[in-house]
């Protein structure tokens, strides 16, 4: 069976999905995730470099998904949050683990998890999810 719809895209994005690799403007220090190749503030005066985020972040906002889109049905209920990274960029991501006591402003840490699977015979897509930080792990 050919599963070609998302295979090349998954491959191209694996570095930024497996780790928080984005970009940063050397001129004004603005960090971007996903990566941008032109600084929104400095435009052509900016100089962009690859940048690995520390992973420190906190929940800006979240929602609990109980009726999931195709491919995510197994995971319900799960939380999707907007996370503000310590370096300034905001990203959306799934919060995993014990989500019963999820709150705004809670610090989170990145963990490596399965994101979804293309059916039982297709690719397993891995990447970063978030866990509520307990201060024990960086």
């Amino acid at each position, binding site marked *: 069976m050919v599963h070609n719809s998302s295979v090349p895209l998954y491959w191209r994005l*694996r*570095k930024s999905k497996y780790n928080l690799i984005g970009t940063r403007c050397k001129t004004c220090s603005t960090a971007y995730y996903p990566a941008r190749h032109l600084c929104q503030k400095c435009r052509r005066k900016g100089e962009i470099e690859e940048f690995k985020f520390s992973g420190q972040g906190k929940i800006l906002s979240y929602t609990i998904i109980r009726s999931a889109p195709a491919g995510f049905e*197994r995971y319900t209920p799960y939380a999707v949050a907007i996370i503000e990274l310590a370096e300034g960029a905001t990203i959306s991501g799934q919060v995993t*683990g014990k989500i019963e006591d999820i709150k705004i402003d809670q610090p989170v840490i990145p*963990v490596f998890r*399965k994101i979804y699977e293309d059916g039982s015979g297709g690719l*397993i897509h891995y990447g970063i999810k978030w866990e509520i930080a307990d201060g*024990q*792990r960086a």
Partner: protein
Amino acid sequence: MPEIGIVGYGAYIPRFRIAVEEIARVWGENAEDIKNGLQVYEKSVPDIDEDTVTIAVEAAKNAIARAGIDPKAIGAVYVGSESHPYVVKPSGTIVAEALMTSEQVMVADFEFACKAGTAAMQCCYGLVKAGVIEYGLAIGADTSQSRPGDALEYTAAAGGGAFIIGKDPLASIEGTVSFTTDTSDFWRREGEDYPSHGARFTGKPAYFRHVTSATKLLLERLSLKPSDFQHVVFHMPNGKFPQAAAKELGFTADQLKAGFVVSHVGNSYSGSSLVGLTAALDAAQPGERVLITSYGSGAGADSFSFVVTDRILERRDKAPGTDYYIKRKHNVDYGTYIKLKRKLKV
């Protein structure tokens, strides 16, 4: 010859647990009898988005943090498991990329039932000793499968241990040996969801013969005796087997204590003895000796003697201890367990 051994180590255990009582309740069995028989009270359960690859990555991140090395200096990544997520497509490529190693890295998946991780350690040791690589990463991780209602359901757990092997170790390898025969005590054919086992046959001719033979061989080669070790770890399919093996070989309950993780996390197969080793290293002091003997059905056992160095004091606290993962737990009921383990076909 400079010392070679464990430069950094790390464990990972998923947060969910299911108690023996909860499984026994569903199958109408006597929980007290089972707990007494197995010396296991609860076992770890992977979250729905965890598998051998994700467990391997989390354990390896802890090992790299303790080693304090650049992942680009890792020359080999070997992942030992009997629950690799793909039949064709290595776990190791995903693990290596997630850890941001160099692309110039040797990668392979290892399989030898529950001892694939220690087999990976032996390979890394050989490559470092031969000067082919600077550091090797050996991982043993599993999300072990058991048929609902089978005796294995009380113990089959998830977890992993990862070890950076190289020079300037926190525990130097004094020696390693293996003992291997064609003994069929436990197996799973391609396409089968759950393993089969030879029930009572798994004890004497399988686990005990291989574990005691490998351990005796190691002691003989190194001219050491059981009392030369402060800590000893055996593969823990349950609590009873390693205790009986220790007794037969002349080790005490005290030597077994630090690495005896099975009672509260179960048997994480390729992770079992390696998670035990991480717990023993968490407790070990410079100058102490640690012995580990893994066991893999099929069958074989790998035995190592480590001498702990001063480096342990500066590296130990750079990652969470194994006890953190053992205590960080959230118990689930049987229904949630079935959902998390995907035993329901949806």
